């Protein structure tokens, strides 16, 4: 079927976006193991499912956008995984049993978030360009991934983890802003 030049240009653009979208869901699959572990280990399936769904959508979205956003997906997943592991081990050691231990558990999550933030910042400063995009993607994904583990520590744990990530990535964010 013959197309006009304009139709062909539009169709090419559409195929480009569809092609990117079709492959972007592979990035979401990277999040599945974490989600499954969280469902098994944490006693809050509703939190895991909501955070897990948001994480998969975020991975697909940033992967589709491409450029440094896509680079941020894997870094965010790895950093977030580290942040999620910390409260998981704390829970196994009985540090997140609740009651008087709640504050200690939240501090553990804060520490896990700081570790994740430091990993992301270290990666971001090595980028020659697109640092801002990288940070947006990686911090969002790290927070969502971290929340899969910090659900054990409740909302306070999740917020503590997110705070840790943001505090440690702040210098990299400010540097990126100054350069752009």
């Amino acid at each position, binding site marked *: 079927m*013959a*197309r006009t030049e304009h139709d062909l240009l539009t169709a090419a653009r559409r*195929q480009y976006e569809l092609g990117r979208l079709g492959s972007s869901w592979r990035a979401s699959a990277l999040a599945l193991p974490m989600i499954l572990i969280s469902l098994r280990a944490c006693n809050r399936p509703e939190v895991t499912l909501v955070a897990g769904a948001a994480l998969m959508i975020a991975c697909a979205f940033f992967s589709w956008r491409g450029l440094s*956003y896509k680079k941020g997906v894997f870094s965010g997943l790895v950093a977030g995984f580290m942040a999620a592991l910390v409260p998981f081990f704390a829970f196994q050691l009985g540090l997140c049993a609740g009651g008087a231990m709640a504050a200690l558990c939240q501090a553990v999550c804060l520490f896990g978030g700081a570790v994740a933030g430091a990993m992301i910042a270290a990666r971001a400063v090595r980028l020659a360009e697109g640092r801002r995009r990288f940070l947006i993607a990686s911090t969002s994904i790290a927070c969502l991934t971290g929340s899969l583990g910090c659900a054990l520590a409740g909302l306070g744990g999740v917020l503590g983890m997110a705070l840790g990530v943001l505090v440690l990535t702040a210098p990299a964010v400010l540097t990126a802003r100054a350069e752009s």
Partner: protein
Amino acid sequence: MDQRRREALERAVVRLADGDRDAFDEVYVAVWPLVRSFARRLVPTSDDAEDVEQTALLKVFERVHELDPRRPALPWILGIAAYEVKTLRKKAARRKEDRSATQKTERLVAPDRSVEEAMQSRELEDSVRDALSTLQPGDLETIRIAILEDERPAISAATFRKRLQRALARLRQAWRAMHGTD
């Protein structure tokens, strides 16, 4: 294509593959004439060439995100166009095979009849046979003698005509009952 333009195209394709939408127009303007001239050299008819060109171009953009930035983009693009040409040639070869198989079957049926006509004729014969099978032997014999112009029985011509009329009327009745039409 000179070296400078080729390098510019390579850089633009890599940027587009990475997700830089700003590179889209530059890649489109450079790749479309390349794919078009490549396809036209390999595909003889202009209608087929147009289909192949457009399909190849759209495939390039659909799959550009898969491009390995360490490898040259131009051979990759022309590889996609070549694949579309190959697909078209396979389809054309299959159509040619099907056409010659149909022609062979038609020759087996009757030299001057198409397969469809032969099937219709066979169906009509079966329907007539079914209608005839409802008639009495006397009616069948009368119709047979009339059609084949065989020797008539020892009766007057008027009596034979009357018998033939009644036999045909009963045949018509049977046909109407079976097919709802004369």
